[in-house]
């Protein structure tokens, strides 16, 4: 049952990156919208994510619950050492969700829309960046179990160029994902052109930031690059991700919406898969101590058995409902609630 629970954890993180990531990316895209197209971009984003964003973010809750029930040591050690970035992540989550909802449900559309939009866009960047930074930090090999002071205990574990570069990489990746998703059949040519431009920029940014991750791994001596190049699976996956890119562009140029979306999702799977392959089963790298892995920090078997069955039962309810939700709202003309 341990492996069932691990599978659910990895899948939840993937789906959070894929679905939640596209939502965050939408916020980042909004931030980069030119002045004259601002309103159009906003409307497009609202239409695309309003019915589904709450559900998309549940994957984070599922991942957190799996961590604290199935791998309590992982959950608590992250909670202590990465307290500060976790709080910043939380602030971002709170601001983003509320600002988006407020913007949509404010009965009077006036100047306040501008404020909600700013908060929504900036907090989207904030959540994505800190989410990436946290992922970088847990494998930076800088978490100290018995720190000698405040800096070593609560700052040093995450404040390094490697973690920061992972945060930046994730921002670029999510923006790329979102722009691919947002290009759909019934947008006008001008908007389409603008989004294609954004997709290109996000694409380049992701490639450059990805390179930075490798460079800073060397600079900060976190061992990521070495691990990566000694792991054939991750090398193959990154090659596959790279090969997907020209295919994706071909598909986008020919306006194959769904093929493009699926290719973007697959590419994310390759990238995340490569990351999993580099580290599995390690989750938290401890300096001067034994790393926490999904195997050595797992809860007792009976707990995992209950958790595993709860997840299996839950997914039997969630997946069909979620599938139906996406199917219903796949067309882009959404009928709003109106008085």
């Amino acid at each position, binding site marked *: 049952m341990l492996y069932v629970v691990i599978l659910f954890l990895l899948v939840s993180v993937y789906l959070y990156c894929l679905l939640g990531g596209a939502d965050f990316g939408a916020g980042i895209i909004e931030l980069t919208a030119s002045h004259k197209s601002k309103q159009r971009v906003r409307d497009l984003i609202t239409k695309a994510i*309003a*019915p*589904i964003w*709450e*559900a998309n*973010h*549940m994957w984070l*809750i*599922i991942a*957190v*619950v799996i961590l*604290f*029930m*199935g791998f*309590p040591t992982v*959950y*608590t050690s*992250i*909670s*202590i050492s990465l*307290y500060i970035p*976790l*709080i910043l*992540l*939380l*602030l971002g*989550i*709170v601001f983003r*969700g*509320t600002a*988006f*909802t*407020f913007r*949509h*449900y404010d*009965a*009077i559309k006036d100047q306040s829309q501008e404020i909600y939009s700013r908060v929504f866009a900036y907090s989207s960047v904030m959540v994505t960046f800190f989410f990436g930074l946290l992922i970088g930090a847990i494998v930076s090999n800088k978490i100290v179990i018995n720190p000698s002071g*405040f800096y070593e*205990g*609560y700052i040093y574990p995450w404040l390094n160029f490697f973690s920061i570069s992972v945060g930046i990489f994730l921002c670029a990746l999510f923006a790329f994902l979102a722009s691919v998703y947002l290009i759909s059949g019934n947008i006008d040519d001008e908007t389409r052109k603008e989004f294609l431009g954004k997709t290109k920029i996000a694409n380049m940014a992701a490639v450059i930031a990805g390179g930075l991750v490798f460079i800073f791994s060397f600079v900060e001596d976190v061992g990521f690059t070495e691990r990566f190049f000694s792991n054939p699976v991750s090398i193959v996956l990154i090659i596959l991700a790279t090969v997907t890119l020209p295919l994706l562009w071909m598909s986008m140029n020919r306006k194959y919406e769904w093929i493009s979306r699926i290719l973007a999702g697959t590419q994310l799977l390759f990238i995340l898969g490569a990351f999993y392959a580099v580290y599995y089963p390690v989750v938290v790298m401890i300096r001067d101590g034994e790393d926490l892995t999904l195997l050595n920090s797992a*809860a*007792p078997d*009976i*707990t995992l058995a*209950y*958790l595993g069955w*709860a*997840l299996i039962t*839950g997914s039997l*309810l*969630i997946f069909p*409902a979620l599938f139906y*939700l996406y199917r*219903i*709202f796949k067309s882009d003309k959404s*009928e*709003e*609630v*109106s*008085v």
Partner: protein
Amino acid sequence: MDNLLAARFTFGFSLAFHIIFACIGMTMPFLMVISHWLWLKKKDEVYLKLTKTWSKGVAIFFAIGAVSGTALSFELGLLWPGFMQHAGAIIGMPFSLEGTAFFIEAICIGFFLYGWNRLKPWVHWTSGLLVGVSGVISGIFVVTANAWMNSPAGFDWINGQAYNIDPFKAMFNPAWVSQTSHMTIAAFEATAFGVAGLHAILLLRKKNFEIHKKAMIIALSLGSIAAVLQPFSGDFTAKNVAQRQPLKLAAIEGQFETEQGAGLTIGGIPDVEKEETNYGIKIPGFLSYLAYGDFDAEVKGLKEFPKENWPPVLITHLSFQVMVGAGTFLAFVGILFWIIRFRNREKLFSNAFLKLIGICTPLGFLAVEAGWFVTEVGRQPWIIYEIMRTSEAVTPMPGQIVHLLAFLLIYLVLTLVAVWLMSRQIKVLHERG
């Protein structure tokens, strides 16, 4: 302020904030569904407008509830790593089930809010009902986890480690039935009276506004039933507490001496220094009866227990008085509502009755908050009753005051914005008639 106290304030405050939105998120969908049902049956446009108006409230409150709930799932570990280290494997079960229920709720809310012209009317109605049902179920799971903190079960505690873990027994611990039923009824009571009160206040300003009239009747019908049921649930809960946590009962009652045929103290100020409760009204024998069903039963006093294990007696006692006071008042208002409704329906919209209902707006929520104060403050100094002290569980991270102030500020802003948004919704509703 020391770190432990700051962390307790932060968590207490986060919970106190979240519970309001959680209550509304759990039970408001039922009001919406009733109105929606009436629209589908009677085809009266007013019900359609009301359903849509309420659904916007649900959307706003659900979003705040969801993000503040997400914050809590992180704060459990951030503030109480010592607790989660052990409790995760034992009591994570209801949380993982809650995750599923919450997920279904989030999916169904998408269907309901955006499904008006896409789903068949009754499928659409069912999605609304499922929002409420999954909301209540997820609330029950979370309260189950809290019940375990009050009555830990499903493990053996040996030298600071848990052995022989049984997540099933932990979840269905001795307190789960009483706590979840009490809280679920409370959520309906608080939300329904809050909604009824708001519409009553609006009716005072805008007479004969049909939406408000119908809204108040629906909300009061539901709220009054909950309010009348609640004292029975409260009695059941009190007897359960008397069995499991006699010290908490003593603190609730400000009972310092062990007594046979102990009297029930109404009001009063416990003085922990002098170990006596002053200024209260005593009803002889009633505490023994309420706690054990026997007027002569022995009730253990605070003095029976070591003082270092006492919870803050004053807060626990006063919170209990507030909860019972508010609850009793609402129960009487609930009965009054049905009497007037059967005798002379039009009197329901008289100024006097509208004012009375208006006064009730915050009372249910006040009772909910006070009730949680009783449960949580009354469990101190333990985080897991008689197993782990709160001080052993707190994070080593210094500077908790910063976290506290930041979250205080954010939740204050969110509350103000939510109120402002509601007022703007109402303004537009009134303008459009």
